[in-house]
């Protein structure tokens, strides 16, 4: 997290009472949301309520052993993050303390208390290449230089939004630390690579545009049926064990964003470790570089202090916005927003606030919408365009989508990927229910798919949707009378729909090839099933019994397309075989 450097030192206070993560102090001179250091160990906290002479603080660390009478020191600054080169490939806790640095400083595998560390390495030097010259006039947001931060990403050094701008009087290339001045302006202002930004405040932009490009995820059910736009918002609610985290991991691995910010909010420690161990070894399918080169991880596991869980999503989105300002497409995954909401509830109940629905504070809905509104496709203040896409997992208690967090989230987001425990039980993964899910971006993204994949993408997709819909209706009848009682054409539709489910919607995240499916392949699998459908229905019209149509040898090969690397040849051959086998029947 950002080290308090403000000279605005205020009067210290004295602890009055301690109850879990909530501490009350008296005589503290602080503003709302200021960061303070609590007790003789200097635990980090944030002011969340001021009442007369008593200031209430949420503490980001364990408070065992802290007693009344100990001092509270104000910093005069709100909770901020350090922004600059060094954030990619990093892993932070909820208040942007790098976990690797903490391990070193604490000399222990356990998280100790009262240890602080800057969010970016202040000692490391970076190669700075100017983008402007002496005499150029610059304004807030303007890119003054470039630092090759990782093989995939050029870090763009920008004039901070709070600056007044002016004429460049000195600038040179070379190796600098993030705290050294790289640009001087005629106003006397010195620009460094590092800037700070308060996490609870949105970074400024000129305009928010309507997104028209999809965020390709490499997951057939998402790209094919429920696409999300770059700059869009999506929610993944589902009961435990339905595959939220695997879906989020898949998105973090394969989404075609420039930058991925992954916020593990109140989730499992082993899962975060999996990400830390896996990502450096995985290749970005687009650039071929290590995935970590474009990834920033924020890990606040479920046993880490609850107040830091409340702040971790803000830390994440502020970092995302900073990269957006450089003109990048950023995808932020928050797993899980329910833990964030529960952290709000826990703090709220310790403050004895009047609870709203199910004990959540009355401001739950406002906080959720303010957070998701920070997503979007923006024109930045420096004229570049960038986007922040937000994908939030929701963990509804008992899998009941009518609970407040799911409901308030659904009112805001435009893509809904409903995870289904029944599908998960039969190991249909990703277990996204195609009847309940939706994407409101479908129409506005169709032109992109038509231009970039295939011109009949929308029609073929509609055929798939219709077939799956019909299957759902037919299944109800089958449950009553059995499959054999149906007319032959409906039996055939059931068989085709089965292939749509098994060969197209199902995807094996753990198979090296199947884990990522480019849009062209998504289209071709769908189209191969449609070919089978069209040929089979023609044969049926010619009087061939349905058993013979579904029994052809080539059909089960549809299920194997997903794992084929050279899929085009495989599908060409398969389509020919299906057609010739079927045509032999009449």
């Amino acid at each position, binding site marked *: 997290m950002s080290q308090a450097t403000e000279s605005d030192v205020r009067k210290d206070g004295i602890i009055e*009472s301690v109850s879990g993560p909530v501490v009350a102090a008296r005589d503290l001179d602080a503003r709302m949301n200021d960061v303070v250091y609590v007790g003789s160990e200097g635990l980090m906290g944030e002011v969340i309520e001021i009442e007369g002479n008593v200031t209430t603080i949420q503490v980001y660390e364990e*408070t*065992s052993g802290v007693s009344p009478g100990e001092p509270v020191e104000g910093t005069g600054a709100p909770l901020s993050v350090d922004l600059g080169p060094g954030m990619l490939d990093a892993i932070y806790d909820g208040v942007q303390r790098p976990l690797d640095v903490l391990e070193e400083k604490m000399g222990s595998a356990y*998280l100790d208390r009262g240890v602080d560390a800057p969010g970016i390495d202040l000692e490391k030097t970076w190669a700075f290449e100017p983008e402007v010259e002496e005499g150029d006039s610059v304004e807030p947001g303007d890119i003054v230089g470039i630092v090759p931060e990782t093989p995939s990403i050029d870090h763009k050094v920008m004039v901070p939004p709070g600056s007044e701008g002016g004429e460049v009087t000195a600038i040179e290339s070379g190796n600098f630390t993030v705290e050294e001045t790289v640009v001087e302006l005629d106003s006397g202002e010195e620009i460094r690579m590092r800037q700070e930004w308060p996490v609870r405040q949105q970074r400024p932009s000129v305009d928010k545009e309507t997104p028209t490009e999809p965020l390709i995820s490499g997951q057939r059910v998402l790209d094919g049926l429920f696409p999300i736009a770059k700059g869009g918002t999506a929610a993944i609610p589902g009961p435990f064990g339905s595959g939220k985290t695997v879906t989020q991991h898949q998105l973090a691995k394969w989404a075609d964003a420039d930058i991925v910010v992954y916020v593990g909010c109140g989730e499992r*420690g082993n899962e975060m470790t999996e990400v830390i161990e896996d990502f450096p070894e995985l290749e970005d399918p687009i650039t071929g570089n290590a995935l970590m080169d474009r990834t920033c991880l924020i890990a606040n596991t479920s046993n880490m202090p609850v107040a830091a869980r409340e702040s971790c999503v803000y830390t994440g989105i502020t970092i995302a916005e900073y990269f957006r300002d450089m003109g990048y497409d950023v995808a932020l995954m928050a797993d899980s927003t329910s833990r964030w909401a*529960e952290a709000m509830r826990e703090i709220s109940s310790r403050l004895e606030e009047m609870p709203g629905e199910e004990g959540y504070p009355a401001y739950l809905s406002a906080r959720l919408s303010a957070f998701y509104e920070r997503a979007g496709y923006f024109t930045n203040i420096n004229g570049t365009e960038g986007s922040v896409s937000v994908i939030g997992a929701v963990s509804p208690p008992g899998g009941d989508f009518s609970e407040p967090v799911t409901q308030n989230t659904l009112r805001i987001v435009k893509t809904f990927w409903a995870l289904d425990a029944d599908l998960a*039980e*039969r190991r249909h993964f990703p277990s996204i229910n195609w009847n309940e899910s939706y994407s409101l971006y479908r129409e506005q993204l169709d032109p992109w798919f038509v231009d970039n994949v295939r011109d009949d993408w929308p029609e073929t997709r509609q055929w798939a949707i219709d077939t799956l819909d019909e299957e759902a209706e037919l299944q109800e009848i089958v449950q009553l009378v059995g499959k054999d009682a149906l007319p032959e054409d409906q039996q055939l539709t059931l068989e085709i729909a089965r292939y749509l489910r098994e060969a197209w919607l199902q995807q094996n995240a753990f198979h090296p090839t199947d884990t990522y499916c480019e849009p062209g392949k998504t289209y071709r699998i769908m189209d191969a099933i449609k070919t089978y459908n069209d040929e089979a229905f023609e044969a049926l019209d010619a009087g061939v019994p349905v058993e013979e149509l579904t029994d052809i040898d080539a059909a089960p090969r549809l299920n194997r397309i997903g794992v084929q690397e050279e899929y085009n040849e495989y599908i060409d051959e398969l389509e020919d075989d299906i057609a010739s086998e079927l045509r032999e029947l009449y």
Partner: protein
Amino acid sequence: MKEYQTITEISGPLVFVETDEPVGYDEIVEIEIGDGQTRRGQVLESASDYVAIQVFEGTEGIDRDASVRFLGETMKMPVTEDLLGRVMDGTGQPIDGGPEIVPDERQDIVGAAINPYSREYPEEFIQTGVSAIDGMNTLVRGQKLPIFSASGLPHNDLALQIARQASVPEEEEGSEEGSEFAVIFGAMGITAEEANEFMDDFERTGALERSVVFMNLADDPAVERTITPRLALTTAEYLAFEKDYHVLVILTDMTNYCEALREIGAAREEVPGRRGYPGYMYTDLAQLYERAGRIEGRDGSVTQIPILTMPGDDDTHPIPDLTGYITEGQIYIDRDLNSQGVQPPINVLPSLSRLMDDGIGEGLTRVDHADVKDQIFAAYAEGEDLRDLVNIVGREALSDLDNKYLDFADRFEDEFIDQGTQTNRDIDDTIELGWNLLSMLPKDALNRIDEELIEEHYREDGTTEEVAAD
């Protein structure tokens, strides 16, 4: 150490004391009552002029004259390797009549969170000898995998079977390098009869020597239950990360633990969350469950099997629900299977092991493990679905393939799941058994299995390879 005789209020498990010196949050307190008895407690809230104390051993007999001492430190557990083989009560006092425990160290029972950066990802297979777990929902070292059960079901038998049979492949090969297996058993609010069942089994099988037992029985004070699992886990961490043991922690019954949390919450007049349980129950449970795992550079590991009984068999109840969101999967004990006489009655369909995929396969278990598991899941789910249908339309109305799925589901339960509590199957036997069953289905229907593996293992003539009975 200052003594106070200024108790102002006693309510349920809570005691409020006026103080004139600051007292640390979470600090340990001793309360001495008239007859010389001492009760221990912990500071729940500390203000400048009063503190609220939660008393572990119950507040009976405490009056306003009782004297209160603040010990100036948070609760510690004395740990040593000599704890192995010992039996203690729920507060860590020995009850086996053995010698006094001489601690090597005293460790804080509220364990600090493991830095996710310092963890090592669990991917070493633990063989439990139970096919439904090894084959379908594999347990790995460092995992937390709860058993979701309900009243009247044999979850204790399963826990004992796992404790008895659990082994890791390297242990069998004898390439042991000092990492031994230890079992920590933390009982919260179980009946004396259940406790005897566990103790008898431990003694009979000699498992006690490598075990540490913490017993809080049903008639022990409820509040004490909130520290029992912390003592157990502190001991586990010590043995795992300082003494290189592979520790299996069995905690039963988490439902009683949560009831105790609720009792304290209610006494403090907190705003209740769902069904009266405190809003911080997720955080609290996470602080227990997350103490499973492995740490980079240490040889030992902590694996947790918490057992909980779902009130009304309802897995949407807050206790199983929150648990499921924290743990890495769950094993469901099923009432129908139990009444059919299937032992252990594990319903594999809703059961799940999240860490399985990285813990199985070539070099870990067998190269065909993942495919066989996926195919069995799909086939059994299909068979289960058809059972509903067959009740309406009868077997004759179903296709040949559907009838095979039905037979598959029956045989899967009879042969694969129902192995009895005394049978210990190794992973080879379990997977071969899987192939025997899958070979009932036509090759075409095995769409989750790699073609080469089908060629290698599919039993063409329908005969089955002999699988050792135990």
